[in-house]
């Protein structure tokens, strides 16, 4: 009698694979718009063709540029003037500390941000003339010289005080890029910073109240509370998160989320941190997976040999 099993197996496998293809890759391709990564090139922003002078930049940042009127620069000995929830009440969101802005954000993006924040952040649709709203970060109109040179100088200063790229941990990258709008409760992160451990319940409640106040301001500013990102690496996937960071409008047209402006390297670190929250066991999964596979393959070989031995007498 002809052995039909290979044919039967082929039929089963082909029908299963067709079904899989249709309900997984194909259906998701139809349901979700595919956005190609631009590799964080920010091609829409003008290139930074002036060489910046950090010393001159420092003068501008603390002087005519008036950055430190709102931003702290802890690494340069300039702590925040207000508590985060107070700052959020004034500006909608706590203005970031600039200690590591020079390494986390792309230089082209930073220069544009100084000159025209709403444009660099791609939130001009929120701050139209009809809306009567102004972006909380004031535009820099120049300190009397060449504005492009002045912006380049400030960027050079920010780069000079920042950590080196390799010193930036995934956590630092995340906190700078996402952490003032998004909580990450599985990593104990609130929009106000890491939640300390309190001995006294009263102190903890006082902290929680500040977080709630911060969130109220943020909600009013953004339209809704930006989501907790603890599990976002599993609910959205790496590609979505990465392209969203690069240009939120490409995935969610009209969203209040600003373009983040990170460099490609920092975007990878942000993703790494999101994996550290939502997919902590990825390394263990690989190693346990390999061991289980080895075990199961040995089991299958023994089962095959046993079958051959038993069936020898049956034919």
């Amino acid at each position, binding site marked *: *009698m002809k052995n*039909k*099993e290979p044919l*039967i*197996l082929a039929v*089963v496998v082909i*029908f*299963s694979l*067709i*079904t*899989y293809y*249709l*309900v*997984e890759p*194909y*259906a998701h391709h*139809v*349901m979700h718009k595919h956005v190609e990564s631009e590799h964080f090139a920010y091609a829409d922003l003008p290139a930074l063709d002036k060489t910046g002078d950090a010393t001159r930049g420092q003068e501008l940042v603390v002087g005519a540029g008036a950055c430190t009127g709102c931003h702290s620069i802890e690494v340069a000995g300039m702590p925040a003037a207000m508590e985060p929830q107070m700052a959020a009440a004034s500006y909608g969101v706590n203005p970031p500390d600039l200690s590591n802005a020079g390494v986390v954000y792309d230089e082209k993006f930073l220069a544009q941000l100084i000159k025209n924040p709403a444009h660099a952040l791609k939130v001009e649709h929120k701050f139209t003339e009809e809306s009567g709203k102004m972006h909380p970060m004031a535009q820099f109109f120049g300190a009397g010289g060449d504005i492009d040179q002045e912006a380049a100088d400030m960027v050079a200063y920010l780069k000079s005080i920042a950590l080196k790229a390799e010193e930036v941990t995934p956590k630092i990258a995340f906190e700078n890029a996402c952490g003032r709008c998004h909580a990450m409760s*599985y990593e104990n992160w609130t929009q106000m910073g890491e939640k300390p451990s309190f001995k006294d319940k009263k102190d903890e409640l006082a902290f929680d109240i500040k977080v709630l106040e911060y969130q109220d301001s943020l909600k009013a500013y953004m339209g809704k509370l930006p*989501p907790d990102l*603890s*599990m*976002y690496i*599993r*609910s*959205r*996937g790496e590609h979505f998160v990465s392209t969203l960071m690069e240009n939120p409008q490409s995935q969610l047209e009209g969203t209040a989320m600003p373009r983040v402006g990170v460099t490609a390297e920092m975007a990878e670190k942000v993703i790494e941190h999101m994996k550290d929250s*939502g997919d*902590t*066991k990825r390394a*263990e*999964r*690989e190693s*346990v*997976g390999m061991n*289980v*596979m080895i075990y*199961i*393959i040995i*089991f*299958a*070989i*023994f*089962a*095959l040999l*046993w*079958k051959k*031995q*038993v*069936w020898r*007498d*049956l*034919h």
Partner: protein
Amino acid sequence: MAHFTKATSVKDWLNQRLAIDKVEKVMMSEYWIPKNINFLWAMGMVLVITFALLLVSGIFLLMYYQPNVDTAFYSVNYTIMRDVDFGWLWRHVHGVAASVVFLIIYIHMFTGIYYGSYKKGRELIWVSGMLLFVAFSAEAFSGYMLPWGQMSYWAGMVITNLFSGGSLHADGLVEWIRGDYVPAQAFLTRFFMLHVLLIPLAILGLIGLHFGALRIPHVNNQEGEEIDFDKEAKKYLAGDKAGSKVMRFANDFMSKDMMVVGIYLIFFFYLVFWNYGFAMDAVNFDPADGLKTPAHIYPEWYFLWSYEILRPFSIDIGLIAFAFAQVIFVLLPWLDRSPNTVPANRRGLFAIWFWVMLVNLIVLTAMGKLPPEGIFSQIGFVSAILFIVQWLMLPFITMFEKKV
């Protein structure tokens, strides 16, 4: 009382009390299986193994899962996935097995349809199998509620809404099922109970019935040949193992079962470690939010075909079509009027019926997931009509089938 003698061994002691030798013969060594079968006959054992994986992984998950709307999501995604050693492994095994078990059930079911294994004395095997399908479906649905993510919540909302019966507006029934106006704490706790107690009990009972229904008619074979099991068994026991048409369940067929199980487990664990996304929908990693409806709500892949029979019609007709689809498979032994117990390829029109049914179910499955727009909703509509028409035609096709 029976007469007991001093036992000569532990085995003898047990034999006097439990007749283990006899049980072993009935269940294993003298449970005769035709030799003329292929690996599709091992799907039963593959299902037993998958069910065991579900049961064991489920027990581990049950030790840490919290059926509370405020903590359920956290207990799954933080406690089990991050805190508990190997919690992630048990969850992935459970999630993937819950999906793969349906693939095997469908293969098992279509094997039965193709070879006519629901005919002449095997009706109860078919019916108990279909009841198992219903029980597994309920088990899958109730389990899907437990992580209390966005898809849990909204699938729970949509499916329980079906019980309002369209124009009947039986909203009271829906509220009774939910224990609330919307899926909330009462809903989660009762589906937790169903998932970990009532439905598993029903499944265990039905598995017993399914096996019991199989013992007297024996399993079918590849050619639908009627075998005199007593005669062939005697031949085997007399030493003519090669000449007999039958073999022992254990170890003869069991060894082949285990070979298939071995290959299956390679595939299964590949999915668990490297390709689990299909079984763990990304949307369900967002916590349940009653104020935020997901852009696309769809069931897991194994419910898509019946979902698509519901969807293309107006609500009342859709519900009737859906109800039809749920029960019609059970009636197969009586809708098939042909006396032939042979593979579909030797049954003329029925062969066409079989392959069209299989392909159409795959089309319905695909359309059930795709958004109901444009060409997809038209294909879905035609496929749903075709499904119903095929079942209505079945008695007539088979009535005039020639005896082979």
